[in-house]
């Protein structure tokens, strides 16, 4: 109980709470953005998209067996990837679209900000876990191959869909982390995990 009342515990709880709400809002915004994106890009909402390269899949086996640190690290890696992909999409969007589609661009930028903010939340939580924050790759992900415009649209659709999935998973992960108990007890085990 004493730990629960400490400033770090309060901060952790606050970060979790805020992160949960941010993830929820991010999911809502991404869902709205998906509709706008599909309509704007002339895509079919039911079109299937292959997995986006460089983005870890949200679906995972034995999710409930994961430690808190594992959850945080997987989330951080995923959102860093989304940050880069969304920045690229925004750039492509600005190149392809004119001022008429400024609304879609603003929505993409807003989601990008949310992804960045969520990554910041994850990093803060990792710091509270006294875990080192893995550095971002200096060179970043390898530049994607030059894609056609349609392929860019499909990739964008895939990124947003996966982001929506990750938003849902992140909410669940943070809620799990917000639970006061065993997560901290499992912390030594987490130290050994990659």
């Amino acid at each position: 109980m004493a730990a629960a009342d400490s400033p770090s515990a309060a901060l952790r709880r606050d970060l979790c709470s805020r992160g949960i709400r941010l993830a929820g809002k991010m999911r809502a915004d991404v869902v709205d953005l998906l509709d706008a994106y599909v309509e704007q890009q002339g895509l079919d909402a039911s079109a299937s998209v292959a997995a986006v390269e460089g983005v870890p899949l949200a679906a995972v086996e034995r999710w409930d067996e994961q430690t808190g640190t594992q959850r945080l690290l997987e989330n951080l890696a995923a959102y860093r990837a989304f940050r880069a992909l969304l920045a690229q999409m925004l750039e492509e969007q600005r190149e392809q679209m004119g001022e008429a589609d400024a609304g879609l661009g603003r929505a993409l930028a807003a989601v990008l900000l949310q992804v960045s903010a969520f990554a910041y939340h994850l990093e803060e939580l990792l710091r509270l876990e006294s875990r080192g924050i893995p550095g971002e790759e200096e060179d970043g992900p390898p530049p994607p191959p030059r894609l056609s415009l349609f392929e860019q649209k499909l990739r964008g659709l895939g990124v947003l869909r996966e982001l929506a999935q990750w938003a849902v998973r992140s909410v669940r992960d943070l809620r799990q982390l917000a639970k006061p108990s065993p997560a901290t007890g499992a912390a030594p085990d987490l130290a050994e995990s990659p």
Partner: protein
Amino acid sequence: MFSRWSWVACGFCLVLNICSPDASSGLVQSCGHIIPESPVLALGSNFTALCILNESCLDFGNIYASQIIWKIKNRVVPKEQYREINRTVSSVTFNDTSSLATPLTCNILADGQIEQNIYGITVTVGLAPEKPKNLSCIVHQVSRFTYVMTCTWNPGRHTFLDTQFKLRYSWPEEIFPDCIPKDVNNSCTITDIQFFVNTEIWVEATNALGKAESDRLVVDPIDIVKPLSPQNVSVSSGILPTVLKLSWENWISNAVMTLKFNIRYRIAGDTNWMEVPSEDTASPRTSFSVQGLRPYTEYVFSIRCMKEDGQGYWSDWSEEKTGMTTEDQPSKGPPIWRIIDTSHSPASWTVHLIWKALKPFEANGVILQYEVTVRDKSCLSCPVKKYNVTSTNHTLQLPEGTYEVTLIARNSVGASPPSVLLIPASNSKAPVKNLRTLPKHDKLWVGWTAPNTYVLKYVIEWCLVSSSSDCIIEWQIAQGDVQGIDLKGIKPFKCYLITVYPLYADGQGSGQSVKAYLKQDRPSKGPTVQTKKVGKAEAVLTWNHLTVEEQNGFIRNYTILYKTIDGNETVVTVDPSKTEYTLSSLTSDTLYTVRMMASTDNGSSTGPDFTFTTQKFGKGEIEAIVVPVCLAFLLIVLLGVLFCFNKRDLIKKHIWPIVPDPSKSNIAQWSPQVPAKHNFNSKDQMYPEGSFTDVSVVEIEADDKKSFSEQDLKPFDLLKKDKSTSEGHSSGIGGSSCMSSPRQSVSDSDEGETTQNTSSTVQYSTVVLNGYRDQTPLHVFSRSESTQPLLDSEERSEDHSGGADSTAQRQQYFRQNGGQDETNTDRPCFERAKQVTHADEGDLVGFVQLQISGQSSQPLGLGMEKNTQEAALSSVLQTCTEGQTVRPETVEENPLPVDEMPKSYLPQTVRQGGYMPQ
């Protein structure tokens, strides 16, 4: 400014460079410059500037630092502030930059004391920015997905410099673009807001003198949101007549922010809002059923929202939406009352049943009809009468008795509970006590003390009292447990008659009434006063009461103000019930102005002025004067009559002297040769002494002188001397009757011929020289040519004349005169003259004539009077002339005693007649 100065400086430099060896090179060089160049200085700080001369100018122009003069604008800086650092550098120091101005110039006195400018700089003075304070931010929701954050702060003092403010915000790992305020320096709006991340916000203020930052505000923008108010609000009636369902849409998804709500509502037309308890709407929702509403009532709803946890701001209230609850059966029966008209016959009532329409919250719908039931309580077998009425009154003809009236209101849903009114045969129960009123703002409170027995209800009747129309009764029912109600709709300045009836379960109490005003004012006019009766020292004033419309309040008193034109005003206060007042202690025969003032609790009004004049005499005063005067006059007259009656003989002698009857005279024995003395003696014998008041002289014309003795003729000789002109013509009458005046002489002369012609006949002549009793003296000379004896009337007329026919009478006078002279020697001559005038005006003729003839009028001494009998006739005449100045009227006013009258005649008569030798 600076550019201008630079131009001037360059101009001077050009002049200086004309002499410069480098001028040939074509480059323009100044002979010096100032360090620092155009500084920005803090207000109140010190400042030092250096003017550095070029070496090249020193040799050619003989210019040195000691010749430098510093100027601010056109004002020379005192030399005390200079310092010559070396031969080419001069400094100037200012301890307070507030004394600085632009431009600051470096000048030099060249040869010939010509001041030339070397260089100049502009100086800017201001303040460093203060730390911005009170930074606060609010996130406004603009649309469903758009939020803007507006931050405001206090920029601090004015810096006099161009100061830039920047609103900066950042995440720990990301710095966002600055927000630069436009046109203002205390607020800025950020459009790119991300929730759920703590954002650090601060303000930077920067100018040439420094930079300041506000305290940093760390906030998650989601916690300072002011959301948009719910939209598409709708109201629908529920199943129950007391429920309305409110539905709406939220602008914010639950993913972003969960909301709580406030719902307020009011009855349409009312201004007071009611609120749904906040705990009922503290969770996210899009609808709510408001309960406990009135049936058949229109309500207005409005709703607002905010973040569920209470952080942030309430939205504005949504647009108002109205909804109406459904009908329900009336909640109560209509209040009912009656007015009984017994004017036609006490045994037969005309009962006007009146009731009030139910209020909307009581009717709970549209009242379709009223059902009236009348039951005669004194006749159990009589059938109950029922009436269906759509209006709010019903008139019945009922015989006197006790009735129970039941009233039910019915709408589309059902019927109201019945209202019951008992109409007893008489209001024999106890009335309320201590009925009173009290104004309360725009309402009139009516209070009473309840009777000792239980009262079911009270009926309060009131009506506007008017002098021109009947009292239109309004009424209200109060429950039996109250002892006062507020009457609404009462007009100020109007008189209301309020009556309270207690209603018992088994009867009704008699009504108690009181008059009341909601608000009083001063009367609209004052009473018109007038006099009913005006006396010498009092006046009765009357006036009419003001009409109730004119009173504007309870008349507390009347005030009478009255005054004379130049006097002080007197004030009298009169009881308001009076219409008459008597002013007393007024001054007689004086004009008074009176006016009247009516006073209420709130002021007074004065009526028109009325003027009246008090009478000169009081009641009975004239009678008190006139009656005694009349009585006195009557008394005097009576006394006079009595006196005359007592002295009738004497009066008769004076007024109607007995004229001797010539027929009885001894004319045959009378001859001119007979001395007058004999005639006198005969007269004396014939008439009693003192019976004559006048003298008549009868003369015989022919040869009268011969018959007189010498002594008797002496007076005539004297007269002849005085009146020589008339002597020749005067008749015997004129001479013998002592009428020796010129006038008489003329008269005598006029008739001289006639006299001579008739000298052989006996003639009677009467001469009246003075008027009788104020009558104008009439000088008549009548000569009777008749040979007939004289009648009584002739005798009377001759009584006034100074005729010489009565020698005997003259003798009587002479005796009386002698007595008088002895006893009254001290009297002045004029007093005696009065007596003479009164006693025998005829004797005065001679005196009058003498005075007219120009005799001296000096008063004579008493000694002369004593000797009148022996004195010469001339002196006598002179003496008695004085007596003629006294008017005969004075004699009449002071009549002498009768026995004294002859005494004053004697001397004159003797002298005048001159017939009687003493």
